[in-house]
């Protein structure tokens, strides 16, 4: 039944076209979101830079007396991991890349007897991890694509107090860095204790040259205590914004690929459909010619 095949193909083409419209719309939305997320990232930078500058000064002043608030713990036995993924899928490997990194980290910690707690942002995290038998202690959802500073504060409120109370030795952050529009990578870095400014990239540029000493009110050690939660929430906010920009970029890329793929599919299906239609016409002509031929033979033999 050649006509039937043609109808089935026509319907498939229509459904692929409809899907293509959706993926193209999502692509356009993601594109506009990237620009917005990048803008927010740029606006947040001065605050973080300012805090990093204060941290550098305070760390210099306290020297080696920073206690457990500064530096890299030598042998952390209890680690809290904050991980950032998206609330929604349809963004290529964005979520899976972060989640796989976390899963590896948890398994590695498990084999060396390091106790790991997880705090997750994004709807996609708990389901993935729980399915693999990894417990998530606290999870936040609903703001991965447009994080506000208040959201960063609530995440910090889950991650910082256990560290200050001495329940964990180290707080790690696993998230996607937005290096540029073309390059985003999953990175695992230490959130707490605060990074030693002498280490890489804590400040960007060194403290400005000056005469005399900086006065601290209150004294540097106490100030460092105040700085820890502020710095952590600013760092989490920065990471959330970078993750959001990365998420939109990943989604834009995935949706562009899906739109292209739909285009290809429509092309192939149209070709098959046209061939089917032509086959049907050819068959029909053959039948007519055959019928006419048979009739003529009847007339001639009569």
């Amino acid at each position, binding site marked *: 039944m050649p006509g039937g095949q043609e109808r089935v193909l026509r319907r498939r083409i229509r459904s692929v076209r409809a899907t293509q419209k959706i993926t193209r719309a999502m692509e356009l939305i993601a594109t506009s979101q990237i620009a917005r997320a990048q803008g927010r990232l740029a606006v947040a930078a001065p605050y973080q830079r300012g805090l990093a500058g204060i941290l550098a000064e305070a760390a210099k002043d306290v020297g080696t007396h920073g206690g457990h608030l500064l530096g890299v713990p030598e042998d952390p036995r209890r680690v809290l991991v904050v991980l950032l993924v998206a609330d929604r899928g349809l963004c290529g490997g964005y979520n899976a890349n972060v989640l796989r990194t976390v899963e590896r980290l948890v398994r590695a910690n498990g084999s060396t007897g390091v106790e790991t707690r997880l705090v997750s942002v994004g709807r996609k995290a708990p389901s993935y991890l729980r399915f693999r038998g990894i417990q998530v202690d606290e999870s936040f959802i609903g703001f991965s694509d447009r994080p506000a500073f208040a959201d960063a504060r609530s995440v910090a409120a889950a991650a910082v107090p256990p560290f200050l109370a001495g329940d964990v030795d180290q707080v790690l952050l696993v998230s996607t860095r937005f290096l540029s529009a073309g390059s985003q990578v999953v990175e695992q870095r230490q959130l707490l204790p605060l990074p030693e400014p002498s280490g890489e990239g804590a400040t960007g540029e060194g403290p400005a040259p000056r005469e*005399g000493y900086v006065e601290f009110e209150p004294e540097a050690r106490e*100030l460092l205590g105040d700085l820890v939660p502020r710095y952590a929430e600013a760092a989490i906010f920065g990471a959330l914004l970078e993750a959001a920009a990365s998420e939109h970029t990943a989604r834009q890329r995935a949706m562009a690929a899906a739109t292209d793929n739909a285009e290809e599919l429509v092309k192939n299906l149209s070709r098959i459909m046209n061939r089917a239609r032509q086959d049907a016409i050819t068959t029909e002509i053959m039948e007519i010619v055959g019928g006419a031929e048979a009739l003529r033979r009847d007339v001639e033999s009569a």
Partner: protein
Amino acid sequence: MAFTATVVTPERILVEAEVSAVNLRTADGEAAFLPGHTPVIGSVVAGLVRLEQADGTELRLAVHGGFVHVENDRVELLAPVAERSDEIDVARAQRAAEAAEARIAELRGAEAGDRDLADAEAALRRAQDRLAVAGG
């Protein structure tokens, strides 16, 4: 003599102005920064910050904690949350203050967790700070 004061929050740069003096409260008490001040890093107590601008007008801000960094004739105020007096919604702050008071009363009666009570008290303080700043 004027110098530059910036008030920076994570979501925007709230103020960048030429000022002749900055008045705020640090952990050690009231502080006024004038041009040529020695370098200071301090933690700021939530409440009113007054910027005396070079043109003689005064800018009033409500800041909710943060740090001040004075250096090379620049005052940088880093606050997680801050707003200008003309941005404060007085009616909303009033409502927030009342709601927080009601909540504190309720929590005291119920002997709830310290964390909830502390949250409510912080909310009340924030609302009161806003009202004080907006009130002129």
